[in-house]
């Protein structure tokens, strides 16, 4: 079985780092890994998609996820969750959304209001098996004084909610390798996320 995870967010390196963590954790657990990382316009405020797929070398080939075929969509910015519906379907896709609005300048310039969270969930629902929303950016700022740790926390939430079939221990090891300067904080944020995921909010 191939597992396909789609990551979307805005700017920064958070989305990319989270996707790399998943790829590395899957690799550490012996899976064959494929995926897409579009570098380039990542830093210019556009939405950046990253794809990670893992499974068996005999079945998994395409780097990109097919329309409607994602098992998991991690949206690190809530509005972008709606733009990821291309990869989602009612039959198989779980959405894990961070309640972390980042207003695009075009909301002002084109007079198109930024939707509120319930509106976003309403639009995503027809494409989702289930939708979970976490306010990890807020919690990370409050509890660790660093909103960026919200990304790692959100990964933890996906694991805690059993929506990503990988082990917590694999992530602990990967964090040591990928975030050597903030190992303790990242592991704490991750574990806090696992707890949130288990509770479902």
């Amino acid at each position, binding site marked *: 079985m191939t597992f396909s995870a789609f990551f979307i967010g805005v700017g920064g390196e958070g989305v990319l780092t989270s996707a790399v963590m998943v790829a590395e954790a899957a690799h550490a657990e012996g899976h064959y890994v*494929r995926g897409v990382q579009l570098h*380039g316009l990542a830093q210019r405020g556009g939405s950046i998609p990253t794809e990670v797929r893992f499974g068996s070398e005999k079945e998994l*080939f395409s780097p990109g996820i097919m*329309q409607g075929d994602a098992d998991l969509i991690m949206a690190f910015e809530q*509005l*972008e969750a*709606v733009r990821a*519906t291309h990869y989602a379907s009612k039959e198989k896709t779980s959405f894990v959304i961070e309640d972390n609005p980042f207003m695009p300048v075009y909301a002002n310039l084109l007079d198109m209001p930024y939707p509120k969270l319930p509106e976003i969930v309403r639009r995503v629902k*027809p494409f989702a098996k289930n939708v979970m929303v976490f306010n990890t950016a807020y919690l990370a700022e409050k509890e660790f004084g660093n909103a960026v740790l919200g990304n790692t926390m959100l990964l933890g939430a996906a694991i805690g909610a059993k929506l990503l079939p990988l082990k917590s221990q694999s992530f602990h090891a990967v964090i040591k390798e990928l975030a050597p300067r903030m190992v303790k904080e990242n592991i704490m944020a991750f574990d806090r996320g696992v707890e949130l995921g288990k509770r479902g909010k």
Partner: protein
Amino acid sequence: MSVLAPANSKTVLLGNEAITRGALEAGVGVVACYPGTPSSEVPATFSRIAKETGVYFEYSSNEKVAFETAAGAAWSGVRAMTAMKHFGLNVAADSVGPVAYVGVKAGLVVMVSDDPNGWSSAQSEQDTRYYARMFRMPMFEPANPQEGLDYTKKIFDISEEFEIPVFLRTTTKVSHSIGTVKVGRYKKPNRKGKFKKDMQRYYNLRPNLQKMHRAIDAKLEAIQKKYSKNFTTEIKGSGKTAIICSGVSYEYAREATVLLGLKAPILKLGMTHPMPDKELSAFIKNKDEVLVLEELQPIIEEHVTQLAKAANPKLVVHGKDLLPKEGEYNLEKVLPAVAKIFKKKCPDFAARTKKEQDAVKGLPPRKPVFCAGCPHRSTFYAVNKVFPKDTVWAGDIGCYVLGIFEPFEMQDFIVSMGASLGIGHGISCVSDQEVVAFIGDSTFFHASLPGLANMAFNNCKSPLVIVMDNSVTAMTGHQPHPASGFTGMGDPVKKLSIEDICKELGAEVRVANAFSQKDLVSKLEELKKLKGLRVLVSRGECRLFTKRKLRKQGVDFPVFEIDQEKCKKCGVCTDQFACPAIVEIHEKKGDKPTYWINPDHCWGCSVCMQICPYGAIRAGVRKK
């Protein structure tokens, strides 16, 4: 993910990283590149590991110079490589053709990355495979990161064996895809060489030229004979319907057959010039129908059609009748085509797409914008204030291309690096309109010097040239250029002075602080009154680059805030300046908005403070 993973281990690598590793394992000694997406991570990775691995790496001023640097090293017996985006090859082409005729001594690999879909904001969907035919060079195309490594390693040997430079061609979804890769061993490269004079070898004038032409064709024939089999993969299957493919299309073909439960015969070409004619002919001989999967132009398809005339005249060849030439392939394009020729059912992707479009209807788009604190936004804002609306805005390639979008809309056309000058000059030759040409600092050294010299020489009314000097090649990832002050190996070096070069060309030059509206406007007003070649150097470091530096050094900077008492809700900071850190919040529809600077997104450039007509913006707390 580690490019320097220990020998014989497995790791996950980006296609471009795997190619870098392959070059290391082949013992590459010299790598010279000008950055360009989707190939940028090859130079970026070498830049990081060059010192540690003993490779000489440089960021050259453009692709032609980069190719020539690599060729010089290869002529002197040191294995060399260059990597560029598709347009880079247009710049380098003038030297690639002749070097192919002359040949090389040590292996020379020219990596070129095509970008179907234009993910890199490219200006055309060029198919580089035509160049291989034009220059008579072999071309190899990996399908995934593992092949990226294996092919790169192998083709250095082939290049050396036949004394011919070789193309390694990727497309975006090969360069930018990740995959599990088994790595081999790399060792310290040989970096010492010597150029040996040899008139027989380097004399490429007639009548030797014709001899060389024959020789290169003979090399291609020999390579076809010896390596066709090695670079062709056949997946055995049953039935008389089959797939022929290359590059990432192979990955889609394999997965499509898994998804449809097919045992389809597949022939995959890893070498697309010369093509494996013997293998292709044998493969199509007993088939009724084949589907050729290749992104962009139908090059393999036409070749198969040609071969079929002798091998199997009744063969039905599909390809671009079922799939588009434009854009890149993916599973939802390939699956229906495969399903169709194998007569299988397939999901109705198009019907779904309609529902997805409905889901996003009415939502604000998120097109790329200048970063918060970007010097370019400030420059465009000032230029817009000084010059009339009907000014011709000659556009160019770099982050400043984003000036094409609202609220500025100040890039009337975008052609190629440096073209703002030539085309702006051409317009000035015939029109009385005011012309302003924008070029970046990296673009200045890459392709603008001839344009400037031409304007100085052909002294007709020139456009006003604005050099947007943000100190790095920002758009492709902050690589250094001749005025950055450091090299691709990270060593400090004297900065070239853009203003001195322009002065030497006889231009009226002003240098303004890109973060000061007052300075920008006054220098622009001065230049507007003058005639002849005029250059404004608008200097302000790329804010993203600054921010990363400050972060690394642990230095804090002030973020700005809006005094709600003084704010008159005029909307200038959002509607005309549009820094993404400034948000307009409507509690309810129809309510008067509140303007707020998100302290997490503000990078403290201070320009919004300068443009607020009511002095409502001020420096706030300091942030790391």
